[in-house]
């Protein structure tokens, strides 16, 4: 902890306040002021200029009846479920690397894991967009080469009647409304977040070898070791990751904006609340309404954070 300090000494050391001043000014200008401004303007009909009209809760009652907004919350719910599933490979990979005997290999794998991180995330995103391209894209070619396409066509024609997968017609991953969500699911396969894996590995390192020896004497198999030793010990990291992931998904819209455009793709199937806010502000020029949407989103995130702090406590 910081030293306690007497009042006289504090007065003499007043210059210390100058140390915190730059950060404080910056934060006040670029974080507090916009936040306050967002709350204030959510009660106005405002298109970003000087003229604005107070309309009370008008924006909020409009949001209450906004089908697109609530549809977007539904979409984001599905995306959160996808992302929960996508956490699994990182956990499995971390445990597998941890169990390797050779420390040299462990280090080598860690370095290999970090490599995708040095490619800008935007580039990764655009490479995936290229993979989804119907004519040249790698995804359709993989389907053709492996023959999976025939399976999908057969399933489509005989079982599900989606009318999405047709013989000799390239699959339009990002242009078929019904394929938007599946595309967002496939996106990023095999879903190994390097930060996540390193995060879990750091947690696994704290497991003492005696625990493993004891487990082995008791004849616990590798699956048992995973559920009784490894998973409980990295549960803190998993939970923390989970919270961050849910909050990031809830407010995220960069991925959707770049993959699908500002309308959320065909049929608006990829619309998220954040994207809707962006769309209203910068496409429709309805800044006041966009602020209100931002506030609603903020309330959701705040509730989630409070819930998390109360029930999903992270033990230090």
């Amino acid at each position, binding site marked *: 902890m910081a030293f306690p300090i007497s009042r006289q000494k504090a007065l003499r050391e007043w210059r210390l306040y100058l140390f915190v001043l730059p950060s404080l000014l910056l934060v006040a200008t670029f974080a507090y002021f916009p936040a306050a401004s*967002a709350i204030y303007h959510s009660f106005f009909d405002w298109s970003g200029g000087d003229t604005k009209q107070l309309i009370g809760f008008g924006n909020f009652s409009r949001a209450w009846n906004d089908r697109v907004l609530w549809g977007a919350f539904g979409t984001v719910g599905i995306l959160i479920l996808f992302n929960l599933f996508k956490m699994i490979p990182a956990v499995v990979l971390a445990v597998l690397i941890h169990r390797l005997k050779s420390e040299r290999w462990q280090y080598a794998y860690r370095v290999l894991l970090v490599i995708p991180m040095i490619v800008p995330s935007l580039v990764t995103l655009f490479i995936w967009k290229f993979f989804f391209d119907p004519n040249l894209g790698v995804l359709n070619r993989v389907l053709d080469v492996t023959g999976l396409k025939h399976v999908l066509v057969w399933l489509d024609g005989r079982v599900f009647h989606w009318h999405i997968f047709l013989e000799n017609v390239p699959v339009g991953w990002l242009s078929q409304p019904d394929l938007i969500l599946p595309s967002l699911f496939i996106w990023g396969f095999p879903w190994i977040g390097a930060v996540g894996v390193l995060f879990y590995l750091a947690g696994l390192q704290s497991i003492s070898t005696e625990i493993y020896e004891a487990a082995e004497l008791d004849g616990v198999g590798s699956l048992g070791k995973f559920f009784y030793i490894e998973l409980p010990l990295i549960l803190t990291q998993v939970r923390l990751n989970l919270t961050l992931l849910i*909050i990031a998904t809830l407010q995220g819209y960069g991925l959707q904006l770049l993959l699908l455009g500002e309308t959320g793709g065909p049929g608006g199937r990829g619309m998220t609340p954040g994207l809707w806010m962006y769309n209203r502000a910068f496409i429709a020029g309805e800044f006041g309404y966009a602020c209100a949407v931002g506030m609603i989103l903020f309330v959701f995130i705040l509730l989630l954070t409070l819930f998390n702090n109360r029930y999903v406590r992270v033990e230090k």
Partner: protein
Amino acid sequence: MSGIAKDSVGARGHRDWPKHAIVGCLILVELFPLYMMLQVSFKDNAEFINNPWLPSNPASWHWENWAFGIRLIGPYIANTVFVAVSGTAFSLCFAILGAYFFARYKMPFSGVLWSAFLVLMLLPSVANIVPLFTLLKELSLLNTLTALIAVGVAGGQVFNIFVLRNFIEELPKDLFEAAEMDGASHFQQIINIVIPMSGPIIGTLAILAFLGKWNEFLLPLIVLRDKELFTLGVGLIYLDGEYVKQWGQIMAAYFIASLPLIVIFLFCMRLFVRGLSAGAIKG
């Protein structure tokens, strides 16, 4: 961990090769997009359609794709380097000063100020972006790189101060007391004690900040209008929308966009890997 102790981690009697196989496969698939980026960058569209998977013959590599990429992306990279370097430097300078304030003494009001910073962790940045845009307009910072730097520095303060405060508080108090006896000012104490002793953590934070700024695209997208000011983020977005897709050229541009990070990575690989794991523990 010693080699002997390590043996008991892997189940005795089991071989390691199945694990190697799974881990290797997963990492190969993970690296596949990068492989595609690299090998497609040397082909033109016709070659790519005929032979999408394997690298083409080095004799017929299309180096002009790379020349095109450098011409196109070079200016964007210069802008991004400027924003990322100055943003990271300012961000860390201010954060060190701020963290020192919180860590050194319990000044009157420092508790209030601390909670004022912490509350910001709850504020999602997403709700801010619309008013931020109009604020920048009023400050006539729209269409400037200064706006990106200032907002970036402000955004990084909370996390950096949070990590650095904890770190500075762990430093031995005697050092500070001895320096004070010798008449060192607070500024001198920061230069001579705090910065030398927290080198690795500052390095890690710097890398994280730099990566974050390199990847930024939403703010530049709404702030920047002039092509001369584009950072990589906006530049790549326009590239994605504008050109009749010559995938070779585009992939070369993508690869060039990653080069500066690759250079940094090669020089501080250990800091990268350690830093990311350490940063992960701190949360």
